[in-house]
């Protein structure tokens, strides 16, 4: 094993580099991805090493980025698009929803669109409006897209490469406030040994309550689980990793054991991805549930000014509060 200690951002950078080395058809495109290396430096050094033909500083137009990525994919390339911030994906929403997601079916399977749309997501960095959003539910609701979210450096490294290898379009969420988190990453492990892109992972086993999370919330839930343990409560934390498709078997296996479930995400609770989880778990685990599935998330309001974001985002206290409430039924 060649272990390297990498930040999540550097793990993505390393994964992108590997994908570009392994397949000359892989392209990187977006605003400021060239010399600057992206505003979060995820593409740092790639243009220098792979050239301007493969690492493309695009005009400032998100619809243009995704729309031309579709054309490049039709011509046999595997474009990886960077959307600079979550709130800026919406100009590209038309291309993603009406074209990228549906062209495969429209062609009766003759066309394949291996496009990855990378989106730094979530809050907690004190940013201005449109820089802290969690738009995953718009995309999980769109059939034809695969939607994944990494939460740690090791997964970031493998998942970005698996997403690029996928024959389907993948919306790839990156937890921007975790970009600087460090961990050991085995950068030389054979892909055959990697966890599957669409499989969930139990990141902390437990007995009393299943806590489901993805992306930036996983770390928060692990902290909550440590705090709960001090009070004698054992939380099982599952990192979903993939939202569409969903590894429902991993989820139900856990909930059938614990009988209690709390879902955590930064996006607003109302019509959020947690609603899908709660409904499915209720259908599949109804007789084993000791309490309703509870959801902890952002308020059902626009993302607030940053001085309020600590109140808006699920934190340890709110997760533990929900855990307590599952015992009140």
């Amino acid at each position: 094993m060649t272990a390297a200690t990498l930040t999540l951002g550097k793990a993505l950078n390393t994964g992108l580099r590997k994908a570009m080395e392994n397949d000359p058809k892989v392209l990187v495109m977006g605003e400021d991805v060239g010399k600057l290396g992206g505003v979060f430096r995820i593409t740092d050094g790639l243009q220098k090493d792979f050239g301007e033909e493969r690492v493309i500083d695009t005009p400032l137009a998100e619809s243009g980025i995704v729309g031309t990525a579709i054309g490049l994919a039709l011509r046999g390339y595997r474009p990886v698009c960077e959307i600079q911030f979550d709130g800026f994906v919406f100009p590209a929403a038309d291309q993603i929803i009406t074209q990228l997601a549906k062209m495969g079916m429209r062609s009766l399977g003759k066309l394949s669109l291996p496009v990855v749309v990378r989106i730094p997501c979530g809050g907690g960095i004190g940013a201005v409006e449109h820089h802290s959003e969690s738009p995953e539910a718009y995309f999980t609701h769109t059939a034809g897209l695969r939607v994944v979210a990494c939460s740690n450096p090791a997964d970031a490294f493998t998942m970005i490469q698996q997403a690029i290898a996928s024959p389907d379009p993948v919306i790839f969420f990156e937890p921007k406030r975790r970009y600087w988190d460090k961990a050991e990453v085995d950068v030389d492990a054979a892909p055959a040994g990697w966890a599957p892109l669409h499989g969930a992972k139990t990141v902390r086993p437990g007995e009393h309550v299943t806590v489901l999370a993805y992306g930036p919330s996983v770390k928060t839930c692990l902290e909550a689980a440590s705090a709960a343990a001090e009070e004698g409560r054992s939380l099982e934390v599952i990192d979903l990793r993939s939202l569409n498709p969903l590894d429902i078997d991993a989820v139900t296996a856990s909930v059938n054991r614990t009988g209690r479930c709390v879902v955590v995400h930064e996006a607003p609770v109302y019509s959020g991805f947690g609603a899908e989880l709660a409904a499915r778990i209720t259908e599949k685990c109804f007789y084993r549930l000791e309490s309703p599935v509870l959801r902890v998330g952002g308020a059902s309001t626009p993302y607030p000014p940053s001085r309020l974001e600590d109140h808006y985002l699920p934190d340890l206290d709110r997760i533990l509060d929900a855990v307590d409430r599952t015992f009140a039924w």
Partner: protein
Amino acid sequence: MTIDSVRGAPGASELAEPELIRLLTPEGERVEHPDYPLELSTAEVRGLYRDLVIVRRIDREAVALTRQGELGLWASLLGQEAAQIGSGRALTEHDMVFPTYREHGVAWCRDVPPLNLLGLFRGVNHGGWDPAEHGFHLYTVVIGSQTLHATGYAMGVQRDGVLGTPSAGATIAYFGDGATSQGDVNEAFVFASVFNAPIVFFCQNNQWAISEPLEKQTRIPLYKRAQGYGFPGLRVDGNDVFACLAVTRKALENARTGQGPTLIEAFTYRMGAHTTTDDPTRYRLKAEEEAWKLKDPIERVKAYLVRNDLADTAFLDDVEAEAKQVAKELREGCLALPDPAPLSMFEHVYAEEHPLMTEEQEQFAAYLASFEEEVTS
């Protein structure tokens, strides 16, 4: 014109060596332009100088406040003062401005208190001033969106039937060189043209969209794009406050009298970083910044004032002192800005009472209260 002659159209060279409408040279010499006569009283020139100095000082203070952690971010206007003050002072009472997030100088001209601009960057609100009161819409962060809003607003003015009357107002949309690539901006050009909307598109071409130079957005000078949409486009020295004033004044008047849209490309330079989180040393040369320093928008007005005996040291000192005072008040006001109450998150999401907001607000209030009980018990 053949296909090949179009292909051979000058790209980078014309982008770099433009012909500019200019009334004041970088050395501070007044020059005339046949289409843009401009008569300014001494008091008016002094007023422009005062505006320029004060907005630069406001900007500097905001950068300092960011460095000290008091603001989360700041988008500096350094270098673009003349484009903003020149166009801003061309506006009259009934005009309406749709800014980006960098139009601090235009905001100053529209009497938006500088402290109000800081709320968004400090993270205590998303803007919050009254656009109607100032004729100055909220800052728009998403690139280019506001150009369509401005066009629609102008279509409203048109439908009010006031064009050509004293109560006619023009609409002016601000945006940058990067924004010209956005679909929204191109759609705004189409709508404005087709409906002959009373609007001025004011593009501050500051040469950089974060790290991407102009040639990543265009192969022809931006002002020439207007022709393709069917309305006039002009390029003005964006560091010349006189020229920006004269050109914008004329374009606004054309709009108010029903003569339709104009695109003004103010050729200027972003002397600082894109925002306080950006690092231009990664992508551009210091020499380029040094070259633009020689075209500073404030120094040339100062030179003009002094050379023509329109201002003495006392006046210049007074302006400096006033700018310092504005900055001091801005700093004090910023530090005193209260954090918003947690429950205010649920306010103004809808115009009328909404059951989900009420429910979540009550739940959150009870949740917050549970901590107080723990403390007191």
